[in-house]
């Protein structure tokens, strides 16, 4: 009986797909999506619903179907993340899980996940960033400011947290502080059009009196001088780095990539722009490198869409001083610094071996 139904569904799917090509309509998208769901092709069903919603943005039924599909997808993701946290706890998994609850507007659950994560990983900025988002969703501006300030104090190059903090300052009337936060972003995202535009808007406003610190164009602190540019003088591994507990299991594996002749260093960055593991040459500021590469990936990803290249997978940047490979690994960003003479095949193999390990641990 099921077999017969599948055949009939298959025929109906073919007929509806032809119809959609010639005369698309919301009801056809809904019917086709339903048929795919019945045949067990959930991802295809979601794809059809999304396509329909894009084509008919005013269709309430399609929008609702799309939201339902996303909810189902998120529930499955939550289950997967909870199970991963049990087996291989990591702060990124906590942050992702909290963000899923946040999307469902389940702020209590999101906050609880953050608190649990924070107990084991108090120095992971990503969790404070999510806590800031939760507070903003609850319209608690003071709490949001505290959490976001904590997030950027743990990682001064956290683009998302810094940008949200700039917006929160603006919402609380602290225009000068907002401007300072945007100036800091501009340091590690020098050509970010969104930030430049926001700064231009702010500069046309009056300065408030609540800000006490002077204007900065680069992050302050004892590292500021060497952060103006990141030198790559040698190949000695940097020691004594801060570790929020995210990449402990990957620190040894990442060093294997340096075995490929010509590789000078590697870094793995989480979806929040924070360092998971790195093996960079001495003198390279890993937080700044993470921020720069995250921001570059963001720009390049947008461009990939503009060029109809689909999702960004990998970029190979050649410059006068060498080569930088930037690639996406399970929603994370990996950067490899190498010379132009590095054998591409050997490097690809080393990268893939490491990427598989990353997926094992973090996905």
């Amino acid at each position: 009986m099921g077999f017969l139904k599948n055949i009939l569904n298959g025929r109906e799917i073919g007929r509806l797909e032809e119809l959609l090509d010639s005369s698309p309509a919301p009801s056809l998208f809904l019917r086709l999506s339903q048929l795919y769901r019945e045949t067990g092709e959930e991802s295809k069903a979601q794809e059809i619903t999304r396509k329909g919603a894009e084509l008919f943005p005013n269709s309430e039924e399609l929008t609702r179907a799309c939201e339902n599909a996303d909810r189902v997808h998120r529930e499955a993701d939550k289950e997967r993340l909870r199970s991963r946290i049990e087996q291989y706890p990591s702060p990124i998994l906590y942050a992702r899980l909290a963000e899923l609850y946040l999307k469902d507007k389940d702020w209590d659950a999101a906050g609880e996940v953050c608190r649990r994560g924070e107990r084991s990983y108090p120095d992971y900025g990503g969790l404070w960033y999510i806590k800031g988002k939760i507070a903003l969703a609850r319209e608690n501006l003071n709490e949001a400011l505290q959490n976001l300030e904590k997030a950027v104090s743990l990682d001064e190059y956290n683009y998302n947290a810094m940008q949200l903090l700039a917006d929160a300052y603006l919402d609380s009337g602290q225009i000068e502080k907002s401007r300072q936060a945007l100036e800091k972003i501009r340091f590690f995202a020098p050509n970010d059009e969104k930030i430049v535009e926001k700064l231009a808007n702010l500069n046309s406003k009056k300065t408030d009196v609540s800000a006490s610190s002077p204007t900065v164009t680069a992050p302050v602190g004892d590292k500021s001088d060497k952060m103006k540019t990141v030198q790559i003088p040698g190949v000695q591994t940097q020691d004594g780095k801060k570790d929020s507990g995210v990449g402990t299991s990957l620190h040894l594996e990442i060093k294997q990539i340096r075995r490929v002749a010509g590789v000078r260093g590697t870094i793995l960055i989480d979806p929040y722009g924070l360092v998971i593991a790195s093996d960079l040459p001495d003198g390279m500021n890993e937080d700044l490198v993470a921020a720069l590469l995250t921001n570059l990936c963001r720009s390049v990803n947008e461009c990939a869409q503009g060029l109809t290249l689909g999702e960004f997978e990998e970029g190979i940047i050649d410059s006068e001083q060498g080569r930088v490979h930037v690639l996406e690994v399970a929603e994370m960003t990996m950067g490899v610094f190498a010379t132009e003479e590095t054998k591409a095949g050997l490097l690809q193999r080393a990268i893939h071996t490491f990427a598989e390990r990353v997926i094992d641990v973090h996905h």
Partner: protein
Amino acid sequence: MKDVLRKINKIYGVRGVILVGADGLPIASDLAEGEDESTLGAVASSVASALSGTLQRLAQGQLTRFVMNGSGGSVVLLPVASALLLTLVRKDANMGMILIELDEKATELAALFSS
């Protein structure tokens, strides 16, 4: 210039090519129907700007080439004199061969700029 771009477009795996000024305005192109010159020009300029800023902060010198691979194909961006050469490449193309040929053609274009 148009001739050189036509030759690039004939390389197996290439699906379009455009030469744009640093400001993103198109200088010449050989694109398939439906490809929008001004969009491609703006994107090329935007990518180059993001890359240059990052390379500068990383003390890596000037950009000499950028290859971007996406799920639906690739692009190669080459600075040529003061302009940018953007080549659209199909997913299944032999990128090694294309890069060699593009380097040659970029030299030809640079010579045209200086003449």
